[in-house]
């Protein structure tokens, strides 16, 4: 057995070393809280953050006599998720009761699905990005989906008086049943083999891709930090070359994409140490600790855990017609990865540019800006440049905000771009205009009008300024005529100054060169 250190960390072996001897098998169970207006089996509201036990009724409190009624919207969401994951949709399936006692579960059974899930046998292709510092292509890993089923969430226990917020050592517990009965979809992968040393990255990429997909489906707000998307990671190792799966552990409480990768990696190195020592892995749930980057032992879990499942007699079977399924299929959004590839092609961005745009969460705003008439290049320039910079610190106390929360809309940016391409504004004027829009002074046109921003279109005035500057700078003129065309910049600057910035710099340059009879 490995030894426990004071901090609770167990012995591990370096990752590369572990990978030289073992093959990982991972499995991911993701719980998604649906964003339906009401709960899975009653009419209670589902909003996050309400006062404890204010969103409850006889049904979700499990009062004597209360009966469930299935939320039709939740079933539709489940079917859409299944379809987006390339699953088969059951034409007839039932809910089942999962029986176990726990204070945060009002009926002491969870209404779930057991051997008849609404969706089964699907897959999701996920793109695993190149590793930091390595010149390699991203690769696509097919994650096989075993099932997606519907169930209800439990209440939320808060353990008071203990040191860690855990039940151990607590003096009492408080239970909030607002969460009890919130619709959940549990999405379970098949055991994933063949990822090798990239398994932790595959895990992260899968959860990330699933999150994007669920967001695109608009079925959940998929906020891992608020628990609306929760991931449990199963990990086991088998000796390289073996085909017999090792004993697995299930790590819970993995609440960010980064943690998914770290937790899987940690468990792989811990399993390797246990197996190296000739010991056996204990089949158990483990708790992930974000701060220390380790897992600790939870409760033993075995396949013999007996939940005494049986078909829920208070509900009738769910039997979506083929027409309903096809109607829902027609509502599916484009797959996020495919969409990304399509947009990149349409916009002509490089891989690096596209990745930056996606990472910044700017793809949607750029798409809307382009749709509003801007060029893809201009849209990227504004959103990824000036606006991205501002978004980083625009929140309270210098916190970051979403791009769309800045107060500038895609339509504004497209309008601004239009003012530049039509020749009314130059770059510097456009920035001043944007400043005004950000300050809430109105649309770009309104701001430019109010601030009197407009390039001088009168060529006579510009010619006069050019002539004046040429006359005043014989030495610079000499250099330009001598072939140092780049020196024209100094003259442009002076022309712009004379014109108080209200001139088109490109036009000024051309006019200077024409006047001097020099080829640009």
């Amino acid at each position: 057995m490995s030894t426990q250190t004071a901090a609770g960390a167990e012995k591990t072996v370096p990752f590369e070393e572990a990978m030289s001897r073992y093959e990982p098998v991972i499995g991911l169970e993701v719980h998604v809280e649906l964003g339906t207006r009401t709960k899975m089996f009653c009419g209670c509201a589902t909003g996050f953050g309400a006062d404890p036990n204010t969103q409850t009724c006889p049904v979700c409190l499990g009062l004597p006599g209360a009966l469930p009624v299935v939320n039709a919207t939740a079933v539709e969401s489940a079917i859409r998720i299944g379809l987006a994951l390339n699953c088969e949709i059951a034409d007839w399936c039932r809910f089942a009761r999962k029986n176990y006692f726990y204070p945060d579960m009002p009926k002491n059974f969870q209404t779930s699905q057991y051997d008849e899930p609404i969706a089964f046998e699907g897959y999701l292709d996920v793109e695993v990005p190149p590793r930091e510092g390595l010149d390699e292509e991203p690769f696509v890993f097919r994650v096989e989906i075993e099932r997606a089923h519907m169930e209800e969430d439990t209440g939320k226990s808060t353990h008071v008086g203990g040191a860690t917020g855990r039940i151990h050592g607590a003096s009492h517990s408080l239970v909030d049943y607002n969460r009890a009965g919130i619709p959940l979809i549990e999405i379970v992968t098949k055991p994933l083999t063949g990822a090798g040393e990239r398994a932790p990255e595959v895990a992260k990429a899968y959860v990330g891709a699933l999150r994007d997909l669920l967001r695109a489906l608009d079925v959940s707000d998929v906020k891992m930090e608020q628990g609306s998307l929760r991931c449990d990671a199963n990990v086991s190792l088998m000796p390289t070359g073996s085909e017999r799966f090792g004993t697995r552990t299930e790590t819970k409480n993995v609440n960010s994409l980064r943690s998914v990768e770290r937790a899987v990696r940690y468990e792989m190195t811990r399993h390797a140490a246990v197996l190296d020592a000739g010991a056996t892995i204990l089949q158990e749930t483990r708790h992930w600790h974000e701060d220390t980057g380790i897992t600790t032992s939870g409760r033993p879990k075995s396949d013999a855990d007996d939940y005494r499942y049986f078909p829920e007699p208070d509900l009738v079977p769910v039997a979506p017609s083929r027409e309903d399924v096809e109607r829902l299929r027609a509502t599916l959004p484009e797959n996020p990865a495919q969409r990304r590839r399509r947009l990149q092609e349409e916009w002509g961005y490089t891989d690096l540019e596209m990745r930056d745009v996606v990472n910044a969460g700017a793809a949607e705003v750029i798409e809307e800006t382009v749709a509003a008439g801007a060029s893809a290049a201009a849209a990227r320039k504004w959103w990824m440049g000036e606006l991205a910079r501002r978004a980083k610190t625009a929140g309270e106390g210098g916190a970051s905000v979403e791009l769309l929360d800045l107060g500038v809309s895609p339509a504004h940016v497209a309008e601004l771009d239009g003012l530049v391409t039509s020749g009314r504004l130059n770059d510097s004027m456009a920035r001043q205009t944007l400043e005004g829009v950000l300050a809430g002074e109105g649309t770009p046109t309104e701001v430019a009008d109010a601030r009197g921003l407009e390039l001088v279109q009168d060529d006579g005035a510009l010619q006069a300024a050019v002539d004046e500057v040429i006359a005043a700078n014989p030495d610079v003129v000499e250099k330009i005529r001598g072939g140092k065309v780049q020196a024209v910049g100094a003259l442009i600057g002076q022309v712009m100054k004379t014109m108080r910035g209200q001139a088109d710099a490109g036009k000024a340059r051309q006019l200077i060169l024409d006047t001097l009879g020099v080829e640009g």
Partner: protein
Amino acid sequence: MSTTLSDDLTRLSAVQMADRLADGAITSEQLTQAHLDRIVRLNPTLNAYLLVDPEGALATAREVDRARAAGEDLPRLAGVPVAVKDIACTEGMTTTAGSRMLADFVPPYDATIVTRIRDARMPILGKTNMDEFAMGSSTEHSAFGPTRNPWDLDRIPGGSGGGSSAAVAAYLAPLAVGSDTGGSIRQPAAVTGTVGTKPTYGAVSRYGVIALASSLDQIGPCARTVADAALLHEVLAGHDPMDSTSIDAPVPDVVGASGTTDLTGLRVGVVREISGEGFQAGVQARFDEALDQLRALGAEIVEVSCPHFGYAMAAYYLILPSEASSNLARYDAMRYGLRETPEGSPSAEQVMAASRDAGFGDEVKRRIILGTYALSSGYYDAYYGQAQKVRTLIARDFEAAFEQADVLVSPTSPTTAFALGDKTEDPMAMYLNDIATIPANLAGVPGMSIPSGTADEDSLPAGLQILAPAMQDQRLYAVGAALEARLRETQGGYVIEQAPEIEVRA
């Protein structure tokens, strides 16, 4: 024997009460008060009611009287009082399900059937006694003491709805609501000389009715006559969006059917497997005579066979405990109900265990253990799975039988009322009371028990059961009403009229 005027009022049928209220001959307040007076006098002896609500009942009665005086259009049973089995949640009124666990439970909501009763403007007299969580056939498993049979105070009134049947038989209510999972309306009706119907599964909402076995439970009326039962049936039945298993179809015309007097051309099936051997002689004799009367009414008697009925009892005692073990898991002392806190600083789990140990009686524990076992992995297929297959076979038996017959008949219960304490130590003997009634619950078909007479050997009432195909509840009322009228003629009155006067015990 002396009867007062108010006693006379309680002796009316619900139909007569409704008529007299409608034509202004009596007020609901008088009628309700007459029942309350009788309850005060007799309930300490019978223990039919666990809770009586004079204020609530009289308030409803006075409202109805006011409305009627103002010329308002009122429902047929407006002002006719009713008793409700203590298994249905009543807002603000303690609802115990006969269990110590819920001795102080006051529901924050009304069951749908209670809402329907209130909408029908019927004064609710109180809540009637029952076997704990409806598990039993004698009401002896109530945590609040047994109910006594008005025909013989040393005998059981049937169960689980013995409180409702005794209340109706003893004129402590003209009508009562029961629930029937394996016979809990029909068997008490049989042994008290009253009428009880288990409607088609899904015909009456279960929302707010404390669940025993969800796939078997059904709510229905208890009354002294078939016509009275039809009126309450009509109030209770109808689609409820709060109950997913509720039937979304028009309620059969049971009231219209209860005026039937002629059964010409009707095929009546006698189920070979539920008559004859094992039935008390007097019960069987009244049943056989009833068949003659059915013939006299123009019906054709045919024998049918339901070969899988022999497995019904076994299947029932796997399905019921399985569902019950899960339905009763919620009684854990965390949110409501009895809480027993062991010494020291116990964990939530220890509090749950101690509370369930203290709150549940032996029969409830017995069935929870049976059900937990039957659902356990490794046993599920052999027990729960097999039982479901038997259930399917029984449903097919019914289908085949209803090809040959329009209704089926049998004795309701193998015996007349047995003595209190007779079978409490022998669960199997107790379970056998429901041998004739259980198949209907397994298949979801409707059933009714009407009195067939009294047994020669003990002068206690015997019951005749009528079964019909699902959603054909009106056939029960047609056959029940015609036969009831015929027997009344041949026997010189309603069976219930032979019940002796109840002697008050201290």
